[in-house]
């Protein structure tokens, strides 16, 4: 297990942390890589990709659905499924307050939206996550909505496409969040039993519980360039293990090199690629 281990260094590389802090100060429409700045409408027209350097901004779930699905084809499902607060969780603020704030800030009912759609006229079920809703974290409501997406795909006999973006399990729901891993995997097993595929598009970031469940179980898995795809993120690995990390630690490129994903595709090439998959798996 140690043949690829990089020689342990006693110094801790803190570059990732510095980038993290700078990122907080930056305007969301400013490219963190080259500094180009865009108006909202420019960014949207460019499917949230920097026209100058190709950096992929995180894409809001609604914008992603509007772009992926054929015009007018998306029918949202299970929008009524919302988070509860079974543990009466209170850290620095009550969990309920955090949920209400996330709803207000994002206009989304939860960190995932699901529904039926068409892509280049192929029917499919979509499940699209949004990192801006409590870090895309998976609690009971997100797990339930993914399960319903599996059920809908099964009922319609169509493939399921998951676009993931999640920091992992939602801590405020404690052990119930952890149980969303086997819950979603169980629903996926039923889909697979019926001969229907799951296609995964992994976007920045997909970490923790999502990587340890359905995000790692796609029949075909593609990733966006430069996305952080890890079970344990770089900051935690650095703080615990005190190893110097390679620059592309946990990124799509490292995942491709080590055989964890099938391809890295810039956003502009994803629709034709997915359409090809839908043709190949079509019945």
């Amino acid at each position, binding site marked *: 297990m140690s043949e690829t281990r990089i020689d342990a260094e006693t110094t801790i590389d803190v570059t990732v942390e510095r980038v993290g802090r700078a990122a907080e100060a930056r305007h969301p429409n400013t490219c963190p890589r080259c500094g180009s700045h865009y108006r909202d409408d420019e960014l949207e027209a460019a499917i949230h990709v920097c026209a100058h350097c190709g950096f992929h901004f995180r894409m809001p779930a609604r914008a992603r659905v509007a772009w992926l699905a054929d015009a007018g084809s998306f029918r949202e499902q299970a929008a009524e499924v919302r988070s509860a607060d079974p543990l009466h969780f209170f850290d620095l603020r009550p969990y309920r307050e955090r949920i209400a704030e996330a709803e207000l800030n994002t206009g989304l009912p939860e960190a995932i939206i699901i529904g039926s759609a068409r892509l280049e006229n192929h029917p499919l079920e979509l499940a699209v996550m949004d990192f801006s809703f409590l870090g895309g974290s998976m609690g009971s409501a997100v797990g339930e909505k993914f*399960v319903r997406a599996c059920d809908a795909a099964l009922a319609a006999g169509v493939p399921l496409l998951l676009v993931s973006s999640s920091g992992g399990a939602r801590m405020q729901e404690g052990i119930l969040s952890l149980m969303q*891993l086997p819950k979603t995997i169980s629903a996926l097993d039923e889909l697979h039993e019926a001969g229907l595929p799951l296609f995964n598009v992994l976007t920045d970031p997909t970490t923790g519980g999502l990587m340890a469940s359905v995000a790692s179980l796609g029949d075909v898995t593609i990733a966006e360039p430069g996305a952080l795809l890890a*079970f344990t993120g770089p900051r935690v690995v650095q703080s615990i293990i005190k190893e110097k990390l390679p620059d592309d630690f946990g990124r799509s490129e490292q995942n491709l090199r080590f055989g964890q994903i099938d391809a890295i595709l810039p956003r502009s090439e994803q629709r034709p690629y997915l359409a090809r998959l839908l043709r190949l798996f079509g019945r």
Partner: protein
Amino acid sequence: MRERLSRLRSLPLLQRTGVAAEERRLRHQLDSVSRVDASEEEIWAFVELARHPERPYTLDYVERIVEDWVELHGDRGRADDGAIVAGIGRLAGRTVALLGHQKGRDLKERLRRQYGMPHPEGYAKAGRVMDLAERFGFPVVSLIDTPGAYPGLVAEQHGQGGAIARSQAKMITLGVPSVACVIGEGGSGGALALAVSDRVLMQENAIYSVITPEGCAQILWRDQGQARKAAAAFKPDAFHCLELGVIDGIVAEPPGGAQNDPDRAAAQLQEALAAALDDLAGIPGSELRRTRRQKFRAMGVYA
């Protein structure tokens, strides 16, 4: 909450707790701990017992309750992960495949076993022994005791998330009975990877959680020192896990904790495992798989 508690009481949830006095004690404990306002001290006491340095580990139980033990090594790909022990042996009169996390007792062993934190190779080893179990119809028994999956560079490069996901997927589809018991720390995905079982039990003083109290405190309070507060907020003790429907039963321990009397703790564990295996014996594989999926699909509380 009160309603849920009374519903709980009507179910045969406490697995073979031995004598009636013990069952009464556990029910009393359930009443007092699974309140909304269980105190920080009450919850933290479980965390400390679950991590007690003298608490019996997987191999301590194996030597007491498994006959004809044959340990199996290696994932047949790359490594033999010391953080996961796998093997076959006889438990309560039947051949089983047994998987368990193994922490080390002294520093040297702890380093060799990575404090019970598996790499992807550990889950691959568990997976190939599950394949063996399925081939020969052996039930799969797993003992859970890990702070979590190993958070390191090589573990990530070798696909830690995918390894945990595939281990769960394999457990979901197993055509043989499976029983898991958390015997210490049930730390997040690293624990769950071996605990997607037909029956999931917890010892009385074990914990099962989505993240360590320290990790949660670091993220939500930005201060590791708030671990007690974090634990009290996410409630990792067996009684809350039972109440939330995450586990199927609680296994009693000797007074003061399993470390006080490992022989007795082992006897109580054996009785609970045997009862669960008896329950599952003779059920066809396809039905086990369907029922298991239904059970996990129903987990969660949403509005």
